[in-house]
């Protein structure tokens, strides 16, 4: 590896590639795009990068398509194991495409963890799991909690170990969309937010660098303790109410990526997770209040 500056990363990405270590996964990345190097340099800690040697879970590349789209309305394409798995996107979206692509790698290739569409944070080794489909406000809430002392494990994909049932960290930036970008800028003025990218399929997006502590400890695991289903509703008062475990189970399974693939093992691990957690339903519009309510949660042993 040359260095972990944007220029150094750009040289490695354009040459032999580099290994991005995020939680338990190693991604081998190649790209001849300066915006990708700049994004990686600004959003990951230096110790997330390793030379392009040894085993990697995922081999990905971002490059320019051949033909007219190399120059006219230039595009970028994402390749996994040499295969183009998405349609090309406008080239300014190269960095978000890398993050989305890495999410795709985890959710489609990994079955040695039980995976849920959920943000996960932790406090003193106890995990707060926030499942939800896109748009419910979980990434915003996740970013806000991470800026107020919670350790960020993941904003998008919960990794549940099949043997222990513990939550493992993914060590990736938080994906912020549209109004949430300025909301977090106001809520956490010291937060490091990468370049803003407009007109994507998800609207305007930007990524929040994981606080250093979370990124460093991403390999640690946390015990499932709170299972909270958040929903942002404009103007709604903050309400944190008990959810039944039965409903909690089905709501969680609705957000599973590989429940069917893992079958009985997934059922046993999910029921165990639900039984070990306090299940709650959160509706909010005031981020400060929501963070305060979640901050006052206590573990029931």
């Amino acid at each position, binding site marked *: 590896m040359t260095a972990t500056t944007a220029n150094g990363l750009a040289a490695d990405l354009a040459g032999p590639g580099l290994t991005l270590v995020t939680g338990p996964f190693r991604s081998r990345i190649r790209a001849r795009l300066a915006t990708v190097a700049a994004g990686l340099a600004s959003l990951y800690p230096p110790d997330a990068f390793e030379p392009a040697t040894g085993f990697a879970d995922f081999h990905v590349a971002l490059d320019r398509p051949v033909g007219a789209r190399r120059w006219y309305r230039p595009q970028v394409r994402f390749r996994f194991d040499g295969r183009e798995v998405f349609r090309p996107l406008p080239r300014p979206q190269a960095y978000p495409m890398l993050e989305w692509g890495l999410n795709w790698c985890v959710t489609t290739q990994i079955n040695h963890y039980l995976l849920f569409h959920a943000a996960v944070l932790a406090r003193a080794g106890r995990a707060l799991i926030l499942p939800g489909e896109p748009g419910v406000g979980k990434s915003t809430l996740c970013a806000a909690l991470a800026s107020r002392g919670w350790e960020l494990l993941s904003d998008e994909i919960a990794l549940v170990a099949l043997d222990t049932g513990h939550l493992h960290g993914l060590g990736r930036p938080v994906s912020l969309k549209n109004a949430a970008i300025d909301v977090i800028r106001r809520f956490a003025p010291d937060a490091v937010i990468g370049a803003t990218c407009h007109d994507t399929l998800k609207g305007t997006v930007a990524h929040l660098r994981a606080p250093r502590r979370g990124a460093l400890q991403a390999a640690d695991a946390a015990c499932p303790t709170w299972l909270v289903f958040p929903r942002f509703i404009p103007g709604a008062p903050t309400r944190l109410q008990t959810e*039944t*475990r*039965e409903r*909690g*189970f*089905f709501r969680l*399974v609705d957000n599973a990526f590989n429940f*069917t693939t893992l*079958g*009985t093992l997934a*059922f*046993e691990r999910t*029921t*165990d997770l*639900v*039984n070990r957690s306090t299940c709650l339903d959160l509706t909010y519009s005031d981020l400060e209040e929501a963070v305060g309510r979640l901050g006052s949660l206590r573990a029931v042993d």
Partner: protein
Amino acid sequence: MAVPQRWIVDPRVVWCRVGGSVLAYHGGSGDTHLLTASAGELLARIDADADRFAPVVDAASAAEAAAMTETLDALAEAELVHRVVPS
């Protein structure tokens, strides 16, 4: 004299108490079923005593026998348990 019906839990079924209910997962179909606690108790009794369990005989009253039969029919409908046909 009617032969008492006997039952066996589908070996692909696992179940677990969650909250005040029982969730049963069928490893063949991949379906998860939400059951009452009493249905879960029946599954456990059948599984623990598959050779002897015969609800009509075991029930303390006719009303209890009817309730158990109704629950067993529902479990059978969900393919969680199967009737054992007397040989």
